[in-house]
């Protein structure tokens, strides 16, 4: 191999990602962000407003990190928080469908880190992994495929299209260019760093003797119901195997990801292994968004070879359909233009009603005046109205997903009625949009000045953009590399950038993308913890306002930590950290005293409470009962006694 071919191979291996992988990656990332938003929504009051346990003034007064960015910091009230959540959802959906993708990549990144940084006190490494992925993909064209942007570009490229142009061989081909950028290497390195340092930090006894997963499953805060069943029924040998398997997986993954040869095989292996590994973790323990965030990296590992393989695996024959439609209806034709482009597998053949010879003999021509007609490949079955649309959707990629709502009883009938209403008014709709309609000419396409050629200045500026983008990626690489070097213990002294510039430290701090990866290390936790509040109401009842919202069980009195608390990652981390954070105790105190506001029962007014930290040693391998149960008081409050009435004869 000569130098050029080596260079090309390296570029192909490390610096390029297929456009389809980016498109699917964008969809996966947006779904992850929507999932992240949805899991926060139930906690808006308790974590995102000043009626919660982390008021904005408290976290700004004693911030976890000196420099943080969050548009949620000014938000104090519930209505404000909900409005900002709605804004996040809107932007995430825009990213999902790929509308103005470049803009929404940036906006979504800012909103996502804002969501996370507002409650950084209860965040875990899942959000860091997610934010890191977003940071890298900021530099990649995620909207190049499977997006509204791509569709609009294709439609605009041929504004004068005719029905004959919709033949599969005449449709404009999709953008097949792979994206080439240092950011592709950044994604690989990010994954490699996560796995390598998670592996190299795991030096403790539990990882050496293979009991780590056993102990992790005895963490009642995070164990799932499946994990609970598994720890009690499956043998220790399995946990030992899985523990060692975890170490092997984490140590091998960097090599697999960065292997310079057999790219399709190694990446394919990484895709399968990574999905299986994090899927298994999510089944056994609840780590919040960590597992989905790691799985969101998967699409970016898919190579062109994988896409060719998918293409071969997709059955095309069974779902071939011929669609007869009213091409004289402007709005119908525009919809068909869009659908023809979405028909990636070219299963649909579009026939205009202006071509009467192409119609099946037994189809009356006036039928197409009322409805679209879909005929299957064998010309046996026919569908009209919304059923026809269900068939068209089914022929698109992931078609059953789009088609099934139109097949659900009830919705199907509703779809038929909506279709008929649209069909009756299609002339009016077409005219309203300035499109031709049934013989009524539409607004002629606006006269265009001769397309001005790109000016030399603009050409030059456009040519410089990739360079500046790559400079940006290189800066991010430097910033993250510097943080990796100082934040991870196994990095040799000589490689540590202890004197990194202040701006480099700030660049990591603002989005809170720290690169210290040491989950369950050096040892799996041998002890478990739980916070219990014993509050006394005005009518003498004992309640636990904290675990009522934070845990599955909130029964008093509590002698030991109950089985499977079912906490989500927010309450899990809050209960773990609040005992050692006295600056935030006042906020907890006020939140507990607002208990009757939340229950809307006057009798729930609290007159006294104690906050206890309950802990025990997890059962040793082969045992099922915890030991060494301890408790200590973290916080105490008693209602002040009313002022004594003035003594007789004395002025108050």
């Amino acid at each position, binding site marked *: 191999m000569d130098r050029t071919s080596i260079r090309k191979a390296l570029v192909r291996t490390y610096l390029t990602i297929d456009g389809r992988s980016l498109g699917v990656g964008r969809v996966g990332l947006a779904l992850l962000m929507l999932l992240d938003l949805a899991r926060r929504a139930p906690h808006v009051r308790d974590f995102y407003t000043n009626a919660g346990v982390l008021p904005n003034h408290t976290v700004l007064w004693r911030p976890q990190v000196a420099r943080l960015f969050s548009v949620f910091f000014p938000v104090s009230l519930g209505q404000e928080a909900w409005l900002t959540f709605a804004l996040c959802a809107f932007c995430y959906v825009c990213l999902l469908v790929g509308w103005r993708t470049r803009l929404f990549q940036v906006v979504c990144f800012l909103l996502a880190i804002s969501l996370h940084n507002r409650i950084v006190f209860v965040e875990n490494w899942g959000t860091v992994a997610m934010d890191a992925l977003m940071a890298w993909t900021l530099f990649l064209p995620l909207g190049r495929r499977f997006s509204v942007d791509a569709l609009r570009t294709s439609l605009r490229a041929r504004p004068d299209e005719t029905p004959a142009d919709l033949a599969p061989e005449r449709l404009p081909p999709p953008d097949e260019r792979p994206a080439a950028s240092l950011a592709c290497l950044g994604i690989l390195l990010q994954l490699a760093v996560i796995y390598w340092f998670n592996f190299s930090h795991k030096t403790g006894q539990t990882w050496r003797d293979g009991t780590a997963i056993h102990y992790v499953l005895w963490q009642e805060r995070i164990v799932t119901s499946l994990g609970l069943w598994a720890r009690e029924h499956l043998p220790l040998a399995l946990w030992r195997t899985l523990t060692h398997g975890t170490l092997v997986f984490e140590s091998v993954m960097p090599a697999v990801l960065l292997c310079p040869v057999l790219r399709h095989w190694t990446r394919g292996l990484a895709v399968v292994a990574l999905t299986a590994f994090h899927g298994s973790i999510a089944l056994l323990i609840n780590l919040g968004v960590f597992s989905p965030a790691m799985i969101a990296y998967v699409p970016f590992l898919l190579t062109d070879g994988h896409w060719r393989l998918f293409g071969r695996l997709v059955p095309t024959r069974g779902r071939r359909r011929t669609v007869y439609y009213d091409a004289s209806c402007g709005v119908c034709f525009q919809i068909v233009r869009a659908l023809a482009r979405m028909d990636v597998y070219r299963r649909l053949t579009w026939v205009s009603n202006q071509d009467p010879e192409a119609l099946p003999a037994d189809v009356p021509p006036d039928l197409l005046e009322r409805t679209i007609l879909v005929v299957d490949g064998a010309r046996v079955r026919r569908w009209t109205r919304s059923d026809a649309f269900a068939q068209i959707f089914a022929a698109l990629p992931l078609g059953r997903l789009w088609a099934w709502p139109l097949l659900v009883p009830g919705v199907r009938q509703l779809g038929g009625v909506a279709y008929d209403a649209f069909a009756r008014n299609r002339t009016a709709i077409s005219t309203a949009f300035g499109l031709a309609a049934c013989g009524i000419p539409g607004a002629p396409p606006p006269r265009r*000045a001769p397309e001005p050629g790109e000016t030399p200045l603009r050409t030059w500026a456009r040519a410089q953009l990739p360079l500046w983008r790559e400079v940006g990626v290189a800066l991010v690489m430097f910033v993250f590399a510097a943080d990796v070097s100082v934040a991870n213990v196994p990095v040799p002294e000589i490689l540590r950038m202890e004197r990194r510039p202040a701006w480099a430290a700030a660049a990591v701090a603002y989005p809170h993308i720290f690169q210290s990866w040491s989950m369950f290390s050096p040892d799996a936790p041998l002890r478990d913890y739980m916070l219990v509040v014993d509050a006394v109401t005005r009518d003498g009842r004992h309640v636990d306002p904290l675990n009522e919202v934070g845990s599955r069980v909130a029964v008093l009195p509590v002698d030991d930590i109950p089985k499977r608390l079912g906490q989500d990652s927010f309450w899990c981390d809050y209960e773990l950290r609040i005992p050692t954070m006295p600056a935030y105790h006042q906020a907890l105190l006020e939140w507990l005293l607002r208990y009757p506001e939340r229950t809307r029962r006057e009798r729930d007014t609290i007159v006294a409470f104690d906050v206890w930290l309950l802990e025990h040693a997890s059962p040793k391998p082969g045992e099922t009962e915890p030991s060494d149960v301890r408790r200590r008081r973290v916080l105490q409050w008693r209602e002040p006694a009313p002022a004594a009435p003035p003594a007789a004869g004395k002025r108050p």
Partner: protein
Amino acid sequence: MAGARAGRASRGGEAPVSGPVDARTDTPADAAAVATAAGEGPARWRALRATFERTYLTIDPRSLGVGRIVLALILLFDLVHRAWAGITLWYSNEGLLPNHTLLWRPPTQWMFSLFFMASWPDEAFVGFVLCGLVYVALLVGWRTRLMQALTVVAVMSLHSRVPFLENGGDWTLGELALWTAFLPLGRRFSVDAVRASMHRRRETTAAELNDRAGLEGDVTPVVSLAVLALVLQLANAYFFNAVHKGGMTWRTGSAVHYVIFQDRMVTWFGVWLRPHMTLALSRVLSWSALFTEACMPILLLLPVYKVVTRRLAILGCLGLHTGFQLFINLGVFSLAMMGFSPYLLSREDWQLFARLARRRARRLTVYFDAGCGVCFQIARVLARLDRFERLRFVSSADPGFLPAGVTPELLGSTIAVVDEATGRVATRADGMARILGALPLGVLWSLPLRLPGLRQLANVVYDAFARRRQSVSIGLGLAACGLPGEGAAAVVLPPPEPTPARQVLRRAAAGAREVAVLLLLTTLVSETLFINAAVPKFLKHKQPSWIMQLVAYPRLIQAWSMFAADAPMTDESVVVDAVTVDGRHVDPYSEVASRYRNPGHDRIPPRLDNDSFFFNYSSRIPFKPEYFVALQEWILRYPERTRRPEDAITKFDAWIVEDDSPPPGQTEERNRKSRIFLSYPPKK
């Protein structure tokens, strides 16, 4: 015909629906519109409606354009004023009002400020820069609609971050920005307007540049409820400021006398005037201020003689607030009130300006290289800015008769500007200065090119540009000396007809905008009735929560009672007596708040020169114990600011110092007293 077309006033700031209007005649359009409308329904009702619309809902787009420029300038002044007063001091956690303190005990339940995100001075500085960029874009009218919306966000953020320091000026400025956000401020005198015009008509020859038909600016009046809201806002402020002034000092005419004895806010001119301030002079000034304030609502809302009354209102507004500004420092209040004036200008005022300007018109002939694409584009812009048609463009390639002093060789290397009256020729940067001087407010634009030093520099820059004009043109894709470029492909494009769906959408958007204005107008009325003491009891009502929120978030506060019921007869000040580790007494507060480094707590020295922020902070902090910790921490950080370890503070007392202002005829304060409101370490 042109007048009738122009008469179709655009609703709520929609794009003008009529074709070009003859700006030279500027034909009154409303008569035709009224006549047409009158025939369609009950004539009287229609006529009444048209009169109401013309009087209260209509505004000339030129007034909006000037209003935008004035608003942007005031906003920039406000921004610089705040930055000068101290980004660190007021907008960061190293200052007197940390974000966590304000969020912990907010002065108002509902407030919005993006500056709460900023904890460090550099973060706040970035916020200031962003605000500055928005204001500058608004000033020049670039993407004006977007910038208007961003301006509202920026003003709200800047003001609501420090609500503890707010005064009436901040409210007024915010309200001005809010109401004008509903109006098309970019329709005239803006980059947007020039770009739209250049897009609409693409000239290809120098001769076409001299045909100004179609280049006139849009004079289609704008009709919107927001116009009424602006006038009501102003009338409201004056009315309640007048009726609340029922105290003794206003009745006896001693108010101005007492005001200039407020050492916190008095200007040097006020101090100078003190010995000369007799009761008679004070009466003249006090009562004329009161009279002006009382007359303003009538002048603003009178349904007849609109042109005259509005002109009087403008004069009253400018006179009154210039007077205020001479005597006392009220922050941005005076400027913000004056910022309403441009919106009171009527079409007749603009016609008057045009007549006056044309009277002094001196025409210039501009010989320029029309084959140079970039030069030609500059000439296209200038032709549009040349509102008084003083410039006549001639291509240097086809000059015809050349006046004395202008040779083809000269035209090969420079522009030549010939004064048609005197025959004087100006070239290079001097020529550009003459051209800029011929534009509206030309002295302003041409001045930099005339200053010694700058003039020579401009000539050097001009020569450098002239030498490279071909490569610059080619670089920008424009024609250059025979080489075709984009500029040569001139096509006259009629704007594409919007589709019916788009037209419906536009109408819906305009309707939604008017509904939003109506909602805010309802809020304004409700808040006015609720909060002003002069409103009769039967009009008082309990405000629903949504109204309270609509008042609080954009600071649409309508409590107008400045120096009312009485002018303040006592003066007060805050000083700190701090002891350093080496035993010195210092006053960290006065060092930044006033012009005296350590005035002591025995008396208030003359003219403290507090800015409006310290003025309000000093007045309010002694009664706001929840903010004491922030003040204490700020005082204890004194050595960090001075960067001298020996300035470490071991103890301090914060004092409030008060005195009674001297009665008319006297100049010495009386009843001096002082008390400690905060001590460190706390006293038992």
